[in-house]
């Protein structure tokens, strides 16, 4: 029997990077096959090539023994290959059924399609209302829409790209049940992930990628985590050093009864948010994305201001009405989630991007930009944070994600902040740079800075934070001490279920 899908010697290069280098793999009908690798290992590129959304420079793809030529997504769908993207391919401004109709080959008959969606979603245990607008759906619900969209085509091969990164631990269990049911019905599944435990729990076989190359294939259920991890990251596993925190007496950041309406109806209202962060500790904010993190971060950074000035205090000074540059004078530094276009100007050079927030640090005098000082400042960051760049004259957009993030983190830390606000510190950053960035953040906090980290990666938060908050539908939980909580509890809070009373009282007292 032919394998459902076979890749032979796939290579793909982008300017400056080899995304896939001579990758071969083969998947049988009904098999759940993991493509395992760190961020930047080339998994997403490989999936795009399988789906036809990108073309390989060389190599061949066979489906049920037939060579695919002139590949594109429409052809993939005709062959029964469907893909669930990591960042969903859904349009916010239209309804669920309209979204699905866009990728359905059937006649444009919305009522009957809606009926089918209802039926199918119930059969696989993930009910959705086909007439809701997508912008009203939670991230988990959007994923259901994506999966149902694929299932409607009765796929022979389903590709899922990091599907659990947006789910609570409880929702992951449900998703896995659905996937197993599908595989049992004969559908092959390609499961892309960097999470070892999930792959071990779900997948029959795994192909491991590193730097675009296949470094091994394994049966994850019969292989130890250590072996898999070694294939993923090579021999040296980075280690973290997290010494115990010694929080300051007075909080550096105080948020009290902060409520705010969403700015448009794609956003989330914040409701009565209160917490504080002390010098010398790291407080993390967990939550499924789209639960108000963006709004909270914008209010903390000053990108959005609030009329009630003492709802946010920095170093004791009411700051909710201040602009970002005014808050920086109080000691705030901020690493935003989007690097290009927010944390840095893509078309500007690194020295120009240094001036963006470091203009009070000697790079500007008498209203004129001092190029020499700005260059020296940028060179200092490049040097100290081992940023791989073509000098201080390189544009921000020419750097890899990890290196740009190191530059931005480095720039903000060079401002010697009293309070550091970091959003998604290691999103899309390769493993080495991630470890470096996390360690840098920990070291900064141990030197006395108050750090507030927003992340969707629970692993990351558990690794570096001293206390954890959970945000759900615009409400923020009371703080939990990292050493006395676990994923189960955080997961429940992420879905908005309240804990039993004595437990939360316990947590509140511990601080």
């Amino acid at each position, binding site marked *: 029997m032919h394998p459902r899908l076979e890749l032979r010697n796939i290579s793909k290069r982008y*300017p*400056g990077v080899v995304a896939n280098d001579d990758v071969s793999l083969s998947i049988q009908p009904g098999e759940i096959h993991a493509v395992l690798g760190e961020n930047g290992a080339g998994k997403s590129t490989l999936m795009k090539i399988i789906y036809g959304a990108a073309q390989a420079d*060389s190599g*061949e793809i066979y489906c049920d023994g037939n060579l695919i*030529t002139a590949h594109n997504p429409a052809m993939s769908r005709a062959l029964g290959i469907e893909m669930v993207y990591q960042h969903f391919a859904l349009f916010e401004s239209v309804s669920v059924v309209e979204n699905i109709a866009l990728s359905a080959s059937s006649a444009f008959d919305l009522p009957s399609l809606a009926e089918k969606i209802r039926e199918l979603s119930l059969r696989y245990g993930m009910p959705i209302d086909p007439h809701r607008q997508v912008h009203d759906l939670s991230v988990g619900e959007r994923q259901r829409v994506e999966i149902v969209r694929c299932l409607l085509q009765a796929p022979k091969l389903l590709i899922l790209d990091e599907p659990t990164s947006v789910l609570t631990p409880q929702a992951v269990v449900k998703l896995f049940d659905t996937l197993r049911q599908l595989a049992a019905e004969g559908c092959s599944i390609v499961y892309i992930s960097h999470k070892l435990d999930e792959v071990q729990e779900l997948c029959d076989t795994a192909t491991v990628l590193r730097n675009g190359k296949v470094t091994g294939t394994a049966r994850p259920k019969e292989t130890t985590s250590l072996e898999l991890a070694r294939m993923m990251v090579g021999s040296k596993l980075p280690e973290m050093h997290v010494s115990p925190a010694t929080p300051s007496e007075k909080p550096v950041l105080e948020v009290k009864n902060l409520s705010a309406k969403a700015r448009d109806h794609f956003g989330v209202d914040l409701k009565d948010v209160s917490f504080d962060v002390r010098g010398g500790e790291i407080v993390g904010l967990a939550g499924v994305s789209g639960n108000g993190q963006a709004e909270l971060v914008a209010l903390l*950074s*000053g*990108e959005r201001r609030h009329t009630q000035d003492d709802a946010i205090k920095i170093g004791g000074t009411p700051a909710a009405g201040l*602009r*970002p*540059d*005014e*808050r*920086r004078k109080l000691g705030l530094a*901020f690493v*935003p989630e*989007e690097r290009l*276009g*927010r*944390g*840095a*100007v*893509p*078309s*500007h050079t690194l020295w*120009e991007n240094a*001036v*963006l*927030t470091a*203009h009070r640090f000697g790079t*500007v005098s008498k*209203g*004129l*930009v001092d190029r020499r000082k700005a260059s020296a400042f940028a060179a200092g960051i490049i040097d100290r944070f081992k940023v791989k760049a*073509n000098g201080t004259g*390189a*544009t921000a957009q*020419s750097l890899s994600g990890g290196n740009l993030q190191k530059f931005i983190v480095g720039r903000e830390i060079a401002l010697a902040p009293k309070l550091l606000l970091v959003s998604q510190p290691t999103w899309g950053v390769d493993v080495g740079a991630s470890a470096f960035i996390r360690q840098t953040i920990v070291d900064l906090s141990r030197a006395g800075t108050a750090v507030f980290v927003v992340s969707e990666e629970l692993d990351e938060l558990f690794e570096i934070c001293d206390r954890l908050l959970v945000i759900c539908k615009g409400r923020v939980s009371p703080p939990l001490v990292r050493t006395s909580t676990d994923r189960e509890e955080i997961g429940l809070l992420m879905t908005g279920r309240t804990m039993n009373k004595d437990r939360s009282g316990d947590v509140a007292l511990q601080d």
Partner: protein
Amino acid sequence: MRFRIEQRPEPSAAMRIAAPVLASLLTLIVGSLFFASLGHEPLPTLYAFFVEPLSSMNGLSEWLLKASPLILIACGLAVGFRANVWNIGAEGQFTMGAIAASGVGLFWPNPDSALVLPLMFLAGMAAGMAWAAIPAFLRARMNTNEILVTLMMTYIATLFLSYLVHGPWRDPAGFNYPQTALLPTAAMFESFDPAYRLNPSIFITIVAVLLMWLFADRSFLGYKMSVSGAAPLAARYAGFRESAAVWIGLLAGGAAAGIAGMAEAAGPLGQLSPQISPGYGFAAIIVAFIGRLNAFGIVLGGLLMSLLFLGGEGVQMTLALPSALTRIFQGILLFFLLAADFFIFYRIRPVRPASDTHALETAR
């Protein structure tokens, strides 16, 4: 052989310089073809268009005289364009500047005073700024699209001028022509040489170019505006005020256009009539783009555009070709320039044809 377009890892510095040259050459080629299709010998026509105007002292004087307002306005507009503030109503701001300055020149109680000219300068600048302040206020406070508002304000300014010269400001001794009286001598720039029209107002333009260079290349304010233009979210992240960029961008353009209007009225025109601008306000937009929103680039762009105006007038007289050619050339030049810019950021590379790969595979 197939080709593929790919993004350059870094924008090409060489293409940045080559693009305007390439665009100019292509414009010339298309221009020749165009002339040929009209039955004119391409080379002599191009000569008449682009070379003849510069072959006399008077031609050179006219060249600089026309380049001056174009460069001045383009410098002002570029300040806004760098911040993505799209003031395309410089024509209206120019008109208001000319009106206000002429008003002072015509009605100042002491027409021989040495103060008249400086006052006209201030009036022209203030009027241009005031005309630009309306769209600035509407954009900053009311989120109203400045492109449309500045443009509508231009139509209104033109109608206002028409009202003045047909009505209250019409020269009673002017045989009923729709025009004002001539400005008194003290309200005019005196030409360097009575034989030619070039006058000292060109120094204003030179100062403006230097200011523009300082602003764009050196100042922190210019830096902030370029961040606002290139990445609005980064500007917000850094705490640079968007409304400041809007105000500065529009007022700079308004001031420059207003001053240019004043210099035109107090220079070559000497009076107001319904038609006071051959489209300087719109052409300056193109100049700003050709000059890549950079002070010295704008100087070159202004000289080129001025030549297009002169050439258009020239062939109109010598070859009886319509002066509308100037606008056609302007449009074509901008088209080519925009297209050529593509190659600053992208390149075309040959890729091995897919069929070759297969041939190799089967051979194996």
